[in-house]
């Protein structure tokens, strides 16, 4: 299982966000370049649609994202809790899944950076521009899906036993980012925040020393 929230930020404020994250996490950022290939099952296989994405360039990972946790409790919390299983695999994985009848649904290239740190939970923040390929697998010719806007995702692994604590750790971390961007459950877009420009200017002027 994992807890996840997403948001968007204008590219011009990404540098300020990076300064803020650096100050909050105290770790160095990691560069990110993920080629994501999403598959769906062919019409002949089962009655459900399934997505499966493959990430990485030299090392490949199969990632299965399951349905969100349901129920009254899940509605009330501001973080999405969903099943997620990953497996590192050899590079011929696409050939295997195509042979089993899976079809390419879409592919994306995410370019940006990530911070991994411990703050009540093992939190990962990724900031990336999402690009699409005009030709199959042509990652060198990728173009932004939303020019001028980057995607921010905060995730943390969780289990059935500890997810409430992980949810509160993620929620409280998100509050620190609130002046720059609003994070919510995936699929519920809340747009950019009006305070972003002022918050970014303040961060850029003093290098993140001010508590927002």
């Amino acid at each position, binding site marked *: 299982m994992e807890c996840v929230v997403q948001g968007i930020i204008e590219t011009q404020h990404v540098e300020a966000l990076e300064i803020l994250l650096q100050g909050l996490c105290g770790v160095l950022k990691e560069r990110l370049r993920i080629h994501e290939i999403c598959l769906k*099952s*062919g019409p*002949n*296989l*089962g*009655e*459900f649609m*399934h997505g*499966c994405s493959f990430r990485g360039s030299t090392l490949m990972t*199969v990632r*299965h994202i*399951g349905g969100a946790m349901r129920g009254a409790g899940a509605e009330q919390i501001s973080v999405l809790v969903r*099943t997620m*299983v*990953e*497996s*590192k*695999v*050899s590079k*011929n*994985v696409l*050939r*295997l899944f195509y*042979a*089993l*009848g*899976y079809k390419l649904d879409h592919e994306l290239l995410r370019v940006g950076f990530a911070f991994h740190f411990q703050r009540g939970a093992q939190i990962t923040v990724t900031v990336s521009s999402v690009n699409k390929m005009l030709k199959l697998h042509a990652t060198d010719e990728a173009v932004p899906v939303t020019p001028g806007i980057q995607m921010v995702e905060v995730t943390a692994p969780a289990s059935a036993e500890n997810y409430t604590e992980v949810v509160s750790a993620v929620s409280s971390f998100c509050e620190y980012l609130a002046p720059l961007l609003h994070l919510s459950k995936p699929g519920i877009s809340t747009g950019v925040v009006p305070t972003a420009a002022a918050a970014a200017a303040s961060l850029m002027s003093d290098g993140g020393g001010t508590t927002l």
Partner: protein
Amino acid sequence: MPLKWVLHWQPNAGSTVNSQILSEVSQCVESINGLKQGRWKATLTLYKPHTREPSLTAEFPRDFLGVSVPEQPNKYYLIIRGQRIVLEADSSIQTIMEKLQSYKTRLALNFDVEYLPISSMEKARQIMGEFLEIWQEAVSKRSLPGQFMHIEPNFAEYGLADHYTSQHTAVQYATVMAQLIATVQAVQSVRN
């Protein structure tokens, strides 16, 4: 990692395998200075398509195999023999396959094998071949109703290099498994 040959026992027509034969085979190996070193377990799982319309499955594999081997407990191997594909994955791939629900596990076999390591075996086909001959000779002296067979799959077809890996082992298990299934089916068709 050390090279491994997976052998299977091919019973003579009309005979079956029993514990007496296994015991005699063990004695054969001990007679050429093999040491018995505990039990050893591999698991083979047969995946079958999960579909309500069997007529639509023609273009996809009828089944594929999942193999776990003891020397790589955190890895799992998926093999489609018809298309010569072997995939090495973290063992969590089993959970993913289960969640995808396209293929269901239909049969799982645990192979409890008594592993008989012969020390200082070099990674050379010639030496392995010579060893197999010695072993066959020892077995033949006992007039057992069958013999050991070694089928070497064409590893290159699976995109595997000459350097031996657990993927080679997994492919050998898949080949032996197919051989066993074919043998069982042949025996059944004779009986029917």
